[in-house]
């Protein structure tokens, strides 16, 4: 008997190997999806916790924004500011007083009323001395918050802030309750159409429909966010039918196989992520405008976009997304021209080029772009040492310590051209011209005038060639064809599933 058992064990082992090879050659198996009221959304990163008022991780908003928490205002799929917890609002003529009227019947998931006291608490908490809000600057213009009655909130500003309503629509400005705010990291309590059910740490967060929501009820009863960081595992989970929709899908090389597969739909939209070759403007030789312009001429954006994003992404010539009103196309300012680049370097006294270091954070787009750019710069004599880094050291050394020559990163906050006016920012760039336009922007409410000012800022940055302006990160979504209502574009980093339904 034991002999036979041993032979059987061997036969099973060999059979499994042969079976594996055979089945891989066989045709695919399709799963037929019936109309459903649940949705499994794939995400690359797990949120560290679920309190958007105490962390910058995009994954927090990607689970909670608009689904679980509501700010006073909200950003919709087109990027417009629409009502959130406040159903309407008025702005005084001088732009210094905002009066918000809250929805009647709005309740937190624990059953308590969401009223003006909660709004006052949330805003004061975000701007207070103890605040650990990642976007504390959004609240910096607030001088006072009053709650004259349960449904009305009056916010006074110390200076006009043209982006105030936009910033109040961010996840960082989510309205939370004093009783539950302290525990929101693990057991989030908001006012949104979905409420928290459970979190299997490392694997998934489950939200269920909030039966007491006072607004329109979502079609979905249950939404599961699953966290899959490995690119091959993402593809497998989609193909196996475990994931219904995978937004922010950044394994771009896998998109064609999903496009060819009738069971899936691929949508490619825009994000707010301007990807730049961050340049230390204070360091030699980058303090010389001719050197920065030489680098701009040495970079072939088309090759970069094909190589890194497999063609899915728009080139930029300044720090502004092409899909936004106010965009000025400056991509032709420094056309790809290695000879011109060499000439400019020679003019700057560097006929033989120079050696430099490019410090790269972990995202795949950064690592791939970095390798390509190093090769492009080598063509004109700039010898680049590529240095990959983890996030924590990158933030500490490059971003905070400004200890770098070149780096590569996408700036994903919406309308963040103002970072070039910040004193002490990691580009080490100072321009009185740019700051003067910025000051005027803050005083201006009129949309057309604001867009003209944004155009002026874009031109200044492009002329100064502050950074290498490369491309916009795309927003690719791969999902089962029967899923409808997922956002195509990402005007903010969120997976708003309140309008999603199955065909």
């Amino acid at each position, binding site marked *: 008997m034991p002999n036979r058992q041993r032979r059987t064990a061997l036969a099973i082992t060999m059979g499994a190997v042969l079976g594996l090879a055979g089945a891989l050659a066989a045709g695919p198996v399709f799963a037929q999806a019936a109309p459903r009221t649940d949705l499994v959304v794939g995400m690359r990163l797990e949120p560290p916790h679920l309190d958007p008022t105490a962390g910058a991780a995009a994954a927090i908003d990607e689970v909670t924004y608009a689904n679980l928490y509501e700010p006073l205002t909200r950003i919709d799929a087109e990027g417009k500011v629409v009502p959130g917890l406040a159903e309407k609002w008025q702005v005084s003529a001088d732009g210094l007083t905002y009066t918000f009227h809250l929805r009647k019947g709005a309740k937190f998931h624990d059953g308590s009323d969401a009223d003006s006291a909660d709004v006052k608490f949330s805003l004061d908490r975000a701007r207070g001395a*103890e605040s650990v809000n990642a976007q*504390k600057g959004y609240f910096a213009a607030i001088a006072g918050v009053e709650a004259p009655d349960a449904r009305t909130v009056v916010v006074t500003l110390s200076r006009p802030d043209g982006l105030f309503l936009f910033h109040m629509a961010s996840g960082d400005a989510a309205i939370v309750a004093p009783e539950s705010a302290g525990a929101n990291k693990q057991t989030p309590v908001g006012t949104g159409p979905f409420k928290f059910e459970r979190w299997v740490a490392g694997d998934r967060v489950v939200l269920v429909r909030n039966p007491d929501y006072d607004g329109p009820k979502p079609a979905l009863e249950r939404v599961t966010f699953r966290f899959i960081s490995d690119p091959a595992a993402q593809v497998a989970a989609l193909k196996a039918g475990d994931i219904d929709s995978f937004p922010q899908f950044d394994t771009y090389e896998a998109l064609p196989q999903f496009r060819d597969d009738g069971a899936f739909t691929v949508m490619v939209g825009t994000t707010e992520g301007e990807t730049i070759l961050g340049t230390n403007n204070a360091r030699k030789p980058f303090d010389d405008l001719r050197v920065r312009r030489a680098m701009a001429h040495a970079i072939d954006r088309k090759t970069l976009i094909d190589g890194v994003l497999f063609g899915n992404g728009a080139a930029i010539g300044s720090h502004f997304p092409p899909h936004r009103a106010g965009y000025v196309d400056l991509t032709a300012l420094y056309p790809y021209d290695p000879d011109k680049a060499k000439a400019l370097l020679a003019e700057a006294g560097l006929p033989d080029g120079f050696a430099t270091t490019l410090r790269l954070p972990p995202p795949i787009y950064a690592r791939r772009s970095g390798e390509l750019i190093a090769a492009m710069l080598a063509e004109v004599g700039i010898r680049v040492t590529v240095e990959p880094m983890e996030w924590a050291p990158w*933030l500490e050394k490059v971003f905070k310590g400004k200890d770098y020559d070149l780096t590569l990163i996408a700036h994903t906050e919406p309308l963040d051209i103002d970072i070039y006016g910040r004193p002490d920012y990691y580009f080490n760039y100072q321009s009185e011209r740019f700051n003067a336009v910025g000051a005027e922007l803050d005083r201006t409410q009129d949309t057309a005038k604001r867009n003209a000012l944004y155009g002026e800022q874009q031109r200044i940055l492009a002329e100064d060639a502050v950074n290498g302006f490369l491309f916009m990160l795309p927003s690719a979504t791969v999902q089962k064809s029967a899923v409808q209502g997922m956002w195509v574009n990402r005007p903010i980093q969120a997976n708003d599933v309140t309008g999603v339904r199955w065909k």
Partner: protein
Amino acid sequence: MLAFLVRRLLTLALTAWLATLVVFAVLEAIPGDPALVMLGTSAQPEAVAALRAQMGLDRPWPVRYAGWVGGMLHGEFGTSLTYARPVAGLVADRLAITLPLAGLALVLSAGIAIPLGLFAAGRQGRAGDWAVMAFGQMGIAVPGFWFAILLILLFSVRLGWFSAGGFPGWEAGAGLALKALLLPAVALALPEAAILARITRTAALDTLREEYVRTAVAKGLPRRVVLRRHVLPNALIPVATILGLQFSFLVAGAVVVENVFTLPGLGRLLHQAIGQHDLIVVQGVVVLLAVTVVAVNALVDIACAAIDPRPRVTV
């Protein structure tokens, strides 16, 4: 035997203490601020400072080290900087996946390897032996993560028998949870089984050359009985040693397989915690792993000493 045990326990304590020192020093030396990681690129310096104070990172390092080690002696591993949960609970959640996974893989690899190794030794140089050796060579050569992807492609994507990774949680039922662990355990077990099969074969061949085996054969015992009664127990000593070492590999080395199957085990926790610069979690997990490895090795030594009295005398 008692002196031997005491020596092993002292070594264990000393190793654990050294591990805390090394882990703490390394994490202090690595650049990176957990508060900055948390609040990101738009954070205002005063918000970062407020968070550092909240996390207790503004205290000098000797105070933090003493607090950490002192806490651990009382069973307190501290609170995760990012997850805002006690580390002990976080680790326990993850161990509830990694330990069954490693255990299952260990049972699978021993279950495959020991019979295969004995089988090969019994017919040295013949076709069966060659087949086992080829399997061994293949198992060692094939990278674990690639084999894991093949398993997913076959059983999840083509056949649809299993999910392509993920873990429903033990509260979803032991059956579902074990099902989620089965493919990862196979992926983890195969390379280990390959190594173990070759070691079992070698050990069995060595034992077969012993004189008492020749005596047993000369007595006219059937080959089957000789293999089981005389060869197997003696060949098990090196096999047990390797098995013990492998358990450490399985616990720590599950990182790759956990990533491919997106299992929220200890390896992924460590991976995420390093990314977030969550020092408290990293320290806790690394010390736990170090103590586990040392403890398992101590257990193996003790087990070998129980089987074979010689090591007891020679240190």
